[in-house]
């Protein structure tokens, strides 16, 4: 199945102004409707290793599986949507690979990574995420954060200890409560969303949203929507202009047209007679 021409994808990743190396990792395949972003953590180069393993495992495995499997169908064995099943399995696989590497090689001990994956199919998108890398949506000029961070700050906001405004002042940034590769088993948060033509989706690491306000992100997506590559570069540049204290990664996906799933012949015949 291919979505060729339905999505426009642009991305940009940068070490920022302070860090010597980039522990973020991004991968995308517009034709398969697949985008992956990971923000690694751990000493020396372990963060890069963890995020690189996560994006590589997930993109290459899913690319192969999507040749055979149909994401909008129901899996006969599990009763789950195939898209969910595939994401669930491949995230578990990436988790195991990172966890085993960190257990067997001392220089990788304790490495882990955040993850946000979006899979587009049948005018829909399934989003899986772990940690504090985010997915935003711009629709009708309004920017909305779609994913909810797995972080100490988000838990504090939820329990009413601090307000979202206070959270921006907090010293407890960058404490995630869930990460890939830290424990033998990890649960990703998976949800489905309807998409519309002209929607713009932004996947980003915390290096962007900690440095650039949601208002400025929204303004950039709106004004530069006709040149997605420039928009991605502009977002990274703005984060750097504001200090660039962490690695910054951005993937932008613009929905160009509807991409309904090709249903069976019988289904098509039925719809003609309606």
């Amino acid at each position: 199945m291919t979505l060729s021409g339905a999505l426009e994808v642009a991305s940009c990743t940068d070490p920022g102004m302070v860090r010597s190396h980039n522990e973020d990792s991004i991968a995308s395949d517009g034709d398969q409707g697949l985008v992956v972003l990971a923000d690694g953590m751990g000493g020396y180069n372990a963060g890069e290793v963890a995020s690189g393993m996560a994006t590589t495992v997930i993109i290459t495995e899913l690319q192969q599986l999507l040749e055979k499997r149909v994401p909008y169908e129901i899996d006969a064995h599990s009763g789950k949507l195939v898209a969910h099943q595939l994401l669930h399995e491949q995230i578990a696989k990436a988790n195991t690979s990172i966890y085993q590497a960190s257990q067997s090689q001392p220089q990788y001990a304790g490495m882990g990574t955040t993850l946000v994956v979006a899979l587009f199919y049948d005018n829909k998108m399934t989003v899986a995420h772990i940690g504090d890398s985010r997915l935003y949506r711009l629709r009708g000029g309004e920017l909305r954060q779609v994913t909810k961070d797995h972080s100490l700050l988000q838990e504090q906001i939820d329990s009413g200890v601090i307000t979202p405004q206070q959270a921006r002042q907090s010293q407890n940034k960058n404490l995630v409560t869930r990460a890939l590769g830290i424990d033998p088993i990890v649960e990703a948060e998976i949800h489905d969303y309807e998409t519309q033509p002209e929607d713009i989706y932004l996947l980003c690491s915390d290096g962007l949203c900690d440095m650039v306000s949601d208002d400025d992100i929204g303004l950039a997506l709106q004004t530069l929507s006709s040149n997605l590559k420039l928009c991605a570069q502009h977002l990274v540049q703005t984060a750097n202009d504001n200090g660039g204290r962490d690695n910054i990664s951005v993937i932008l996906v613009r929905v160009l047209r509807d991409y309904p799933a090709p249903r069976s012949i019988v289904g098509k015949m039925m719809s003609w007679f309606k």
Partner: protein
Amino acid sequence: MAKLILSMDGLVLKEIALTKERTTIGRKPHNDIQIDNLAVSGEHAVIVTILQDSFLEDLGSTNGTVVNGQPIKKHFLQNSDIIELGKYKLKYVNEAVAGQAKAADFEKTMVLRPGSVKTATAAAAAPAAAAVPVAAAAGAKHFSDTVAAQSATGAPVAPPKPAAAPQKNAALQLLSGANAGKELDLTKPLTTLGKPGVQVAVITRRPQGFFITHVEGASFPVVNGKTLDAQAHSLNDHDVIELAGVKMEFFLKT
């Protein structure tokens, strides 16, 4: 680690490190910070500390708690806040903000184990719980990165300021077309010019100054008679821009 500096009439009396999850302040001797003054209630206030953040809460004291001149019930303490209790002053100092190298280290993303987080949040939500949160930080080997961060740049490690803006203001004056003579202030971080679908350029306002970049269309903007390429171009005072058949002058405002 954050601390409080207790003083009266400008005289420093003592320093108290906020090592405990709950630090109580009051007149009675069982308080962690005892202030033996009649203006201070028996149990006056409490400071709840969660990792690097501290929250001050008034415990229904008779004379109230004042932070930076404002009476508060609950307050998220920021570095160098002044807490006033009667004639006494407590200055809140958060060294994670003051010590740059340490702060850079802390900015590394770390994982909190679910168990410890529950304790931390629950303890804050229900201050009665006496459990001490333990942050089980994964990947604590940050030495190389910390050194790199120290030597790379002296980048400020204070909380991010909202979008840094250049000192100067600038505007465009249209020189031709139907709106000739009109002025357009460049106050936003991004200002688009031109006709969508035909030719669009954007002027970005950055700390280093103003830049023009081509966004869409077959033809590129012209500045002072020279056609630009896809790269951003720095704008100087009195540059003349030609875009979608309209001429305009860029100028800095004082």
